[in-house]
């Protein structure tokens, strides 16, 4: 009987303490304390991440180099074809928002089997104190990586484009077909709700259409989401869809950039 009372009293004490901790950390003081502790933990978190990254990085280095070069060439091609259009749009724009890039180190990304399974979220070492806001997009080499969903003073959680539930409006680079990019989980992305009259081409780049609000939150236009890997078009259906292959292997990233308005 004595033994049972002992552990129950411990249980109730720590359960109440957990609820109390939850309430305390919702206050500004608690949030600030949490941010400070996170800042202290970042080096250890990053050390684990770097150790894992150094193990996986050595593999397929030549293949990775070729893939990186291919990605850069594709992006250059998309950029050049958009130059004239961008100049034209610039003259038509009345209040352009200038954007800045804030570099952020990845301190964690969680996948079922690290290096094998596709992660759905990243943790970076920049937060509210660095001017990051919920809804800011994160990029690498003009490729959209994801969107910030959760923030603390010194850290942020990013939902990747492949995360189940992620969505944004997009268009294809060559044919200007409009659609919605939706994450499916497990590293899969599809572009859906494309009308049948629009044409989709394999290997065409899918870019963001642009949906920034007046506060600068959201995705600017022409960020690359990926390239079309396969097309699903049935004459009997209302819409067609396409599978999108990402241009960047998120598992190999160590630094990303948060897009902020100045």
């Amino acid at each position, binding site marked *: 009987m004595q033994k049972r009372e002992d552990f129950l009293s411990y249980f109730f004490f720590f359960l109440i303490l*957990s609820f109390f901790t939850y309430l305390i950390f919702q206050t500004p003081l608690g949030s600030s304390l949490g941010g400070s502790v996170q800042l202290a933990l970042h080096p250890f*978190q990053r050390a684990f991440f770097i150790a894992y990254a150094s193990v996986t990085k050595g593999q397929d280095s030549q293949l990775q180099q070729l893939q990186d070069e291919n990605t850069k060439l594709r992006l250059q091609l998309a950029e050049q074809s958009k130059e004239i259009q961008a100049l034209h749009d610039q003259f038509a724009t009345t209040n352009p928002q200038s954007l800045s890039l804030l570099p952020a180190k990845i301190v964690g990304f*969680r996948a079922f089997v690290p290096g094998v399974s596709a992660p759905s979220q990243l943790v970076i070492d920049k937060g509210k104190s660095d001017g990051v806001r919920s809804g800011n997009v994160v990029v690498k080499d003009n490729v959209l990586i994801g969107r910030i969903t959760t923030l603390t003073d010194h850290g942020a959680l990013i939902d990747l484009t492949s995360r189940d539930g992620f969505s944004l409006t997009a268009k294809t680079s060559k044919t200007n077909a409009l659609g919605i990019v939706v994450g499916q989980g497990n590293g899969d992305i599809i572009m859906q709700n494309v009308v049948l009259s629009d044409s989709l081409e394999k290997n065409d780049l899918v870019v963001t259409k642009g949906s920034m609000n007046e506060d600068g939150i959201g995705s600017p236009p022409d960020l690359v989401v990926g390239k079309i890997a396969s097309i699903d078009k049935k004459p009997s259906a209302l819409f067609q869809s396409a599978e999108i292959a990402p241009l960047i292997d998120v598992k190999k990233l160590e630094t990303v950039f948060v897009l902020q308005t100045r």
Partner: protein
Amino acid sequence: MEIALLLVLLVAIFLEGSITTLPVVLLMLLIITVVIRQSFVFGVAFLSGVLLDLLIMRPVGQTSVVLVLFVLFVRLYERKFEIETVPFVLFASGLGTLLYGLIFGIPNLLLEVGGAMIGSTLFFLAVETFRKNQKRKQKRYL
């Protein structure tokens, strides 16, 4: 032995906070509760939950509640049945991972449950083998 397990728990906290969605902290707490049947494990569960919430940006205190409740269920089960057995570790790790995954929305839940059951059972067997060897060595000296 206790210190070694707590150090492994600390490593598990950073693993789950940095690179894996597998609930390794929950599984380590299960092993610690099974091996070290003392009430301070509730405190360990609370602190682990707080650290984990800070690392993966959850509201602080959420994971602590789940982990403390998990330790309670294991200790309550211990009052009636033996828990230092492979079937119990297999069952508790599977059920614990399933509930943890449903609460926190972990993807690939079935894979996670399978991985958790296998991993925790193997680790439990390793810990038990080590403890038996330690006891044999102590008996020889006596």
